[in-house]
């Protein structure tokens, strides 16, 4: 039986593994579908992770995390967890049909981009509609693209796209931005970025080769924007499916958005079950916060395993 199973290998899961093993837990496995690193590896630049003073890409930021975090005995298993259940101990059902027992579990499955909900979004996802500028921006070199959203990610990725594309239309439903003032200023100063404010995307259209354009509704006025690429950054949904039980209830308490309710020690209402990072209630959705949560959750898991 494992002392601790960690689900997810982003900043929260990796840091939890580091603290748990360095703190003395012996049998600790981190389940991560692929190479550890998490969603930040999609970011074109990170300038707010303290201690890393240069502006780096998300991939560069995460480069040495796995090595450091596995130095004290953390094991990574490249497997997907389907469900976490609780009997006497915790039971993890894996994607390949195996089950694993653990005394304690930290859920650090993070979040995935939210759909904006316009017509044609799913149909053209991956064929013009994208949620990753660093991945797909290259396919729109010297072409015009649109970005939907008004937060930090939307604005930062607009700046990244403006380096590659001939023009970036930034579509935002308000006329004010939630993003950091410094970023808003950089976007305003960029001649390649044009604002379409107080507007939303109504529909995406195209043919069998992919997206050809989007219909925008700007306070009742329709705009037909002929762009082959639309990048959607309208927030994130938490990945909580591993907590769903057979009867579709959740293993522990979650709020109305499905975010896991924890206390300041990252404890859920189920003893031995912890949550860390983007998945938890009131998460700041930042790498530094996810890492900090992972450390806290690991310290709580150590106490739990020692006391039980």
């Amino acid at each position, binding site marked *: 039986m494992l002392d601790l199973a960690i689900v997810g290998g982003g900043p929260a899961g990796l840091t939890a593994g580091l603290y748990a093993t360095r703190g003395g837990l012996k049998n600790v496995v981190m389940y991560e*579908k*692929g*190479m550890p*690193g998490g*969603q*930040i*590896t*999609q*970011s074109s630049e990170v300038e707010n992770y303290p201690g890393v003073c240069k502006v780096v*890409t*998300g*991939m560069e930021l995460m480069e040495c995390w796995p090595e450091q975090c596995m130095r004290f005995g953390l094991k990574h298993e*490249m*497997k*997907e967890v389907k469900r976490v259940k609780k009997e006497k101990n915790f039971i993890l059902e894996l*994607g*390949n049909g195996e089950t694993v027992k653990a005394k304690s579990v930290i859920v650090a499955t993070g979040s995935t981009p939210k759909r904006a909900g316009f017509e044609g979004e799913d149909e053209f*996802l*991956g*064929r*013009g509609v*994208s949620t*990753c500028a*660093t*991945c*797909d921006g*290259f*396919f729109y070199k010297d072409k015009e693209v649109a970005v939907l959203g008004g937060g930090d990610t939307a604005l930062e990725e607009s700046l990244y796209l403006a380096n590659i594309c001939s023009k970036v239309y930034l579509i935002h439903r308000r006329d004010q931005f939630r993003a950091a003032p410094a970023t808003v200023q950089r976007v305003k100063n960029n001649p390649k970025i044009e604002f379409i404010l107080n507007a939303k995307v109504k529909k995406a259209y195209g043919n069998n*080769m*992919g*997206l050809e354009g989007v219909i925008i509704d700007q306070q009742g006025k329709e705009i037909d924007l002929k762009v*082959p*690429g639309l990048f959607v950054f309208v927030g994130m949904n938490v990945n909580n499916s591993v907590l769903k039980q057979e009867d579709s209830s959740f293993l522990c308490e979650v709020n109305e958005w499905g975010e896991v309710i924890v206390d300041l020690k990252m404890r859920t209402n189920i003893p031995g079950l912890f949550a860390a990072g983007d998945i938890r209630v009131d998460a700041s959705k930042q790498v530094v916060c996810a890492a900090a949560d992972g450390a806290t959750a690991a310290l709580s898991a150590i106490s739990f395993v020692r006391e039980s």
Partner: protein
Amino acid sequence: MGKYVELNASNFDETIKNGVVMVDFWAPWCGPCRMIAPVIDELANEYEGKATIAKVNTDEEQDIAIRFGIRSIPTILFFKDGQLVDQMIGAASKDVFKQKLDALLG
């Protein structure tokens, strides 16, 4: 140890012609592509002699990417005897790729 086949303009058609072939379109700057890279390595090993596991670096082989209308990576195409039979967009777990391959190997 089985290894994946690196595809380019000169070996692409030849490679997809026979049997079941899984092709991962990727690029070095793409986070989700990097995430599934070790999964692809393991699949190449496990399916040695059964299916061909291949990769196209879209940064270097833009013509192949254009030919298949690739606009998002990772995109994974599945061929059977030269015919495109299935495709997936975005990172996924090994079990998902295995299910697709096993279904095609039938």
